[in-house]
């Protein structure tokens, strides 16, 4: 069963998250620049005189397709790399994926998202 992770993270945490994912064997991913607000409803910025509140802050949405078996490990990696402990660290959403097709080869399903040294191969071959 394939799953999609949509992780909303801080822009400045992208490098850390990519490194952490690399370490567990997740290479394929894409990002979307998004703007949004969470429970705290934005932040205060300094104006001409005093502060004003802005919401719709810039964030990154990280998209990853992976096997259900790898979810826990991947989520842990993202959480530990993207966390600062402050409001605004983001959220992770997980969806089922109906089908994946690799355009070049026509491969489908797990085949389509596999690559040498990926998280599954690493698990099978811990060296």
């Amino acid at each position: 069963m394939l799953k999609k992770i949509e992780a909303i993270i801080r822009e400045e945490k992208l490098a850390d998250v990519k490194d952490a994912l690399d370490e567990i064997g997740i290479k394929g991913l894409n990002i979307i620049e998004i703007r949004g607000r969470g429970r705290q409803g934005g932040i205060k910025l300094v104006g001409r005189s005093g502060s004003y509140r802005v919401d719709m802050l810039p964030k990154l949405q990280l998209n990853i397709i992976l096997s259900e078996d790898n979810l826990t490990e991947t989520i842990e990696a993202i959480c530990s790399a993207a966390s600062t402990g402050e409001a605004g660290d983001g959220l992770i959403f997980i969806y089922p994926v109906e089908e994946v097709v690799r355009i070049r080869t026509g491969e489908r399903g797990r085949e389509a998202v596999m690559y040498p040294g990926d998280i599954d191969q690493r698990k099978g071959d811990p060296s």
Partner: protein
Amino acid sequence: MSTAVINTGDTAWMLVCCSLVLMMTPALAFFYGGMVRRKNILSTLTLNYVFMALIGVQWVLYGFSLAFGPDIAGVVGSLAHVGFAGVGAAPNGQYSAGIPFSLFAAFQMMFAVITPALVTGAFVERVRFKTFLLFALIWSTLVYDPLCHWVWGVGGWLRELGVLDFAGGTVVHIAAGFSALAFAMVVGPRKGFPKAMMEPHNIPYTLLGTGLLWVGWFGFNAGSALGANGVAANALITTNTSGATAGLVWMLLSWLDGRPSALGLATGMVVGLAAVTPASGFVTPLSAMVIGAVAAPLSYYAIRFRIKRGLDESLDVWACHGIASTWGMLATGLLATKAVNPDGANGLFYGNPSQVGIQLVGMVVTMVLAFGVTYVVAKALDWSIGLRVPDIEEEVGLDISSHGERAYS
């Protein structure tokens, strides 16, 4: 008078100053433009740039004559210089013995251009362009030209009274500030104010504008000496000192409230420059430091006051120019000294308490004229052709709805 000889040094300097002051209007446009939302940047720039065109014509046709034509009863200039008649290479000794009268007229034109442009900060992002153009012309004719005559025209009643206003504390900054206040009260707040976020869309524009304004201000204040001389040099130093001091103080105030903001630093600089404008040719550099240091908190808290009152005087023309220069005019009455400028007067601290009263008259008269006329004209235009664009056009933004353009594609 026509026997006066052109002084090439003075003339060269004033040609440069005239150009420097011209640059202040586009500088102001970007200073303002950075603070509006991105859908209104072209509109905001246009509200400012258009004065270079509008007053560039009006001043030659009749504006200069109303302001500096031969005096009629202390109130207004005659029509003797309509179409720049009699405004040629020959100096007019009443105003400046060493430079062509035409150059004096051109230099003054740049002041007439930027002053109404200052007022636009009150009504950006919602004003109807057609109505604005009409307002601009009426305001220049009924407020700027007569006031300019009262304060600077030979025979003008405030000048005869002895009001000291070196480069436009009353004529430019108080007039613009209090007109902005009146217009904002009539036109009403932008849709969504104060709940919706009106975040500045390009603070770098505002900083760039600030830098260019500061450079231009040397022409504005030092140029108001109308010659290349010691008073000009003093005005340049006092201008710089007040702008610098107010910038520092404002930065500290914003730091105490959170962080040292770039927008705060820039705002403080402009406030210091506006505050010292009436005083620049009459006070010492250390006095200018006092002027800048006091101006910053005055304007800083005037903005708070304005916001607390729920008034959307959007870019704080009243707080930054009106209040700063009100203080500057008062400070001139306190700190002016003939040691700096023998053609000026002494202030309270130099043994002449009556100057304070004279300054007060100049300030109050300017406020009443600017606020009163603007309020009445704005109301009349609101009732007749409407001051604002329809709600939907305001929401879309004036760049598209008023000008059919977008700034960033």
